[in-house]
């Protein structure tokens, strides 16, 4: 569990439009890496390319290399479905499956991937994942109730539980708190701090205080203008990025002078 990610000269395209250009980044295992930058700078696109989710959009493709512990994720014969089983994802808006109960939502990844397991194993997975997502105490008495009946913050934690139930190596989070209130946000941030003991976490956020609070490393993406590709401007330890960045653009952004 938990692996390193290495991006080498990664270009990401939507059809003929180059959305992200020349990203070189290494993400160490069992750390939290935050990606910050203005809207449209390609940080979400980069995040989605890590588990090959951006391919869901027609015409999207990638040039360059993306390696998970030395294994080329875009290598010949690499099935995106297999990649996604190793790299879990949590989305901006909570999206539990509306037809399923809380219990079924958590084991959805196992069930839908034909993993055979006894009732006892499923029970254990559900409890472990929900405890892992700090949701167990709130829902343990109503596991058979629909997941969509929970509050927004609880739903997001349910989605995190669903993502960690399949025991991925990496957990990607695309602005996981932007639809939540401050208390739920705090709960998720605490959770991220615990999860990094077991997973490599990459989180996209617009909230710079959040990046400073939860992450060990921070990457700053920027874009020169509309229609231009986004680039990784700088990446370093979070406290360096927020105190003494080497690039002027980073300093301007983290101090709130633009963006």
């Amino acid at each position, binding site marked *: 569990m938990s692996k390193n990610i290495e991006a080498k000269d990664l270009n990401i395209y939507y059809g003929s439009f180059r959305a992200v250009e020349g990203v070189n980044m290494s993400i160490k295992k069992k750390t939290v890496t935050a990606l910050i930058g203005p809207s449209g700078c390609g940080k979400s696109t980069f995040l989605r390319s890590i588990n090959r989710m951006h391919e*869901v959009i027609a015409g999207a493709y990638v040039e360059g290399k993306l390696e998970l512990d030395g294994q080329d994720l875009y290598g010949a014969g690499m099935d995106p*479905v297999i*990649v996604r089983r190793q790299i879990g994802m949590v*989305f901006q808006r909570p999206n539990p499956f509306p*037809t399923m109960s809380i219990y079924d939502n958590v084991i959805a990844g196992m069930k*839908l991937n034909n993993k055979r397991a006894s009732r006892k194993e499923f029970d254990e997975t559900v409890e472990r994942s929900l405890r892992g997502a700090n949701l167990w105490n709130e829902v343990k008495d109503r596991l058979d109730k629909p997941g*969509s009946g929970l509050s927004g913050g609880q739903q997001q934690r349910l989605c995190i539980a669903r993502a960690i139930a399949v025991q991925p190596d990496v957990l990607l989070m695309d602005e996981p708190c932007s639809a939540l209130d401050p208390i739920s946000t705090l709960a998720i941030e605490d959770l991220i701090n615990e999860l990094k003991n077991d997973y490599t976490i990459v989180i996209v956020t617009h909230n710079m205080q959040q990046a400073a609070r939860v992450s060990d490393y921070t990457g700053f993406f920027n874009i020169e203008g509309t229609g231009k590709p986004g680039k990784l401007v700088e990446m370093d330890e979070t406290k360096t990025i927020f105190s003494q960045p080497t690039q002027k653009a980073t300093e301007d952004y983290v101090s709130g002078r633009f963006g």
Partner: protein
Amino acid sequence: MSTGTERTDTVTQGPELDLPASPDLLPKAKGTLPKGTAWGVFVASALVVGGILAATGFSIGLWVVLTVVLFAVATYVLSRVVEGARKATDRLVTVVVSAAFGVAMIPLVSVLWTVVSNGIARFDAQFFTYSMRGVVGEGGGAYHAILGTLIITGLAAAMSIPIGMLTAVYLVEYGKGRLAKAITFFVDVMTGIPSIVAGLFAYALFALIVGPGVRMGFAGAVALTVLMIPIVVRSTEEMLKIVPNELREASYALGVPKWKTILKIVIPTTAGGIATGITLAIARVIGETAPLLIAVGITTGVNLNPFDDRMATLPVFAYYSYVAPGIPREPFLDRAWTAALVLMVIVMLLNIIARIISRAFAPKTR
């Protein structure tokens, strides 16, 4: 309990507002008409119109129409004087909309009433258990036609539901480019095909295969399939489109393959809507007469084999009982009405089933 009108002392929070001395900035609302005024005006209009018509010669249609007109005018004028222009317009539009609803209900209620009142006479056990074999006058029933309708419609549904649903899945989940556009276009064209054309198509097809003069239940089922597929495609397509993309992404992100995402996430999420659409499609074709008239014909006895010879169906049974009655005519006309009533009952049952299904499958939140 607060009634909403009494004043309670509340502590106002926030900064002190610098209020102007006279709070006349907002224009005061004019008076309001007391509750029940509308009903009063309506009854008054009815009485006035009734009185005038009683003097000149009474007719119920004219009475209703003139009452509504007078009611609309009186309400508008009264409200305009007391409440002002905006509220008056509001009231006028309310009257117009309600009147339009009433007009739309007239044919509906009229058809329902005519069919029920004429059909109830033979809505008995014998109608459901007897065929018309050897019946020349009274008695007999539509047992053979009811079975024929169920068999032919069932076959049509069995053929068109898989084809239609899979087409919709292709269009929403896979199709892009020219092929998908072409399919969408032809589905649209097929929606507008007159049912007689579908019947002629099925007859011509089976005449080629089996020989001219062919009549069989399966040919009718094929004709109904032609009519039903576009309806199923359209309704399923609409239902699949409203499934949020986020659910598909959530499933992909768990490493679930696309086909399984469609089968286990997308379709279950909207199963209620799809089932409703399919049931309504069945209800739509079950009353088709013209294609069955051509491709299936009519018979007086029970024929349960859809691949051999003529079969009776409810709409064709009703049609023939009406255009070619025996002597005496009355029992034939009665049976035609009852056949129509049975069709309506079947359609109503299908609608109820659709509602139950959609309620059972709908995603729950508690």
